């Protein structure tokens, strides 16, 4: 209990004093996760839409696989990305290991299935509503997917926020591929792991509270921008 209260105090102190290191790792957390999220959405949202409108033989198997991939253990993703990016691995010449780019790659792998799966589920329901209309209007497949993406944007926001939540709180993969290097690849979660290892629980809890606050701010901001949950705009 004492550590939790001390953590709250620590969080306040870090925020009030605009601790330079805190700002640096917080911005890096945001930069890595938001970049990964944008990439995951660019891949995952159209993929979800495509799976909703397209009927093909292996559709059920693809969707089941996608849902299973949501549970990919981050530490395994981290290890595989490490082995690929290692200088002795196939993409070693790119020299990406222990950089924020490597962390973004790992997070894209982790959250794309989640984003695609939630997007697919939302658009599948929408598609059953729009099916006859879009078919009768003779819309092309691209137009159909686009319509679903635009009209389902609030449900897709949930998909994006779920992806953001999983990525911003992730530590196993980015610890391996980023290395938690001070001033280069240290982010909020790896800093929390480090301070926990040092037994500095108050600081760790403080950083954790800031991480939660950050997730709240991002969620509120995105809901505000998309004007969801307002009277008359269910």
């Amino acid at each position, binding site marked *: 209990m004492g550590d939790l209260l001390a953590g709250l105090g620590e969080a306040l102190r870090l925020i009030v004093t605009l601790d330079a290191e805190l700002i*640096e790792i917080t*911005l890096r957390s945001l930069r890595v996760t938001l970049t990964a999220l944008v990439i995951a959405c660019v891949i995952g949202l159209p993929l979800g839409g495509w799976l909703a409108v397209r009927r093909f033989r292996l559709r059920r198997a693809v969707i089941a696989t996608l849902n299973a991939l949501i549970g990919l253990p981050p530490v395994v993703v981290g290890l595989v990305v490490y082995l690929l990016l290692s200088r*002795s691995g196939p993409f*070693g010449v790119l020299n990406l*290991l222990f950089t924020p780019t490597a962390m973004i790659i790992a997070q894209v792998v982790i959250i794309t299935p989640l984003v695609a799966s939630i997007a697919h589920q939302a658009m599948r329901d929408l598609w059953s509503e729009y099916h006859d209309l879009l078919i009768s209007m003779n819309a092309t497949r691209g137009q159909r997917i686009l319509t679903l993406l635009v009209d389902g944007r609030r449900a897709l926001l949930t998909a994006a926020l779920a992806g953001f939540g999983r990525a911003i709180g992730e530590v196993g993969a980015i610890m391996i591929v980023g290395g938690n290097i001070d001033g280069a690849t240290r982010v909020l979660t790896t800093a929390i792991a480090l301070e926990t*290892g*040092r*037994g500095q629980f108050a600081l760790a809890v403080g950083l954790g509270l800031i991480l939660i606050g950050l997730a709240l701010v991002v969620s509120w901001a995105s809901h505000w921008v998309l004007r969801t949950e307002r009277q008359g705009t269910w």
Partner: protein
Amino acid sequence: MLLRALLLCLLPLAAAAETMRMAVTTSFENSGLSEVLLPAIAAETDLDVELVVVGTGQALRLGEAGDVDAVLVHARTAEEAFVAAGHAPHRREIMYNDFVLVGPADDPAGLAEATSATEALARIAAAEVPFVSRGDDSGTHKAELALWEATGLPPEGEWYRPVGAGMGAALNTAVGMGAYVLSDRASWLAFGNTEGMALLFQGDPALFNQYAYLPVDPGKNDDIAGDAAARLEDWLVSERAQSLIDGYRVSGEQLFTFNATR
């Protein structure tokens, strides 16, 4: 202020200094010595040393893959095998600290009366009091296993609990279950969560913990900063490094003793 931090974060740093990566053990980083040495290294050799903090086992693997330019670890047998396999041209001893046995302050196994490290461990085994082992193939883990071997007692049973984690996590676990644990002195002194725990045995020469620097073979790939690693080695054995290492204190105690040969 915020804008400046944002710019620093978003723009690639136009650093004049040369950057190199060194894999170090958690015990070195947790001790806080790196925070003293790195700024001095940056100021005096113009080297920006990025630390990848992992266990000795993983540090040597990173060196083997050529993903870091140098390694600073503490597991002599593994280091010598690393050099013999050609992953590093040589091994340079830099400094040492020592291991200590930490446990519940009421000392149920009576470690305070032990006269040697092996006797202390034998007492823990006889009393079957919980003992947390790193169990992660790190330098500290290897040292612990060597000590158990010297006692002739197999560390097995309910009371022996390998956690497969870094030093800090192992200490946290030991605090949580009221167990004994072997820690390097630096990690223990710098550790914040010491409630109900005390240092119970120390001083046996068998607990000596040597750190060595291994520059990774620059022939592994074109990206290894061999020159930077050599410059860092020169600095690490310099008189300046000696005074910083010997002068580093936590809670008034000297943590590391410089013993490189020039």
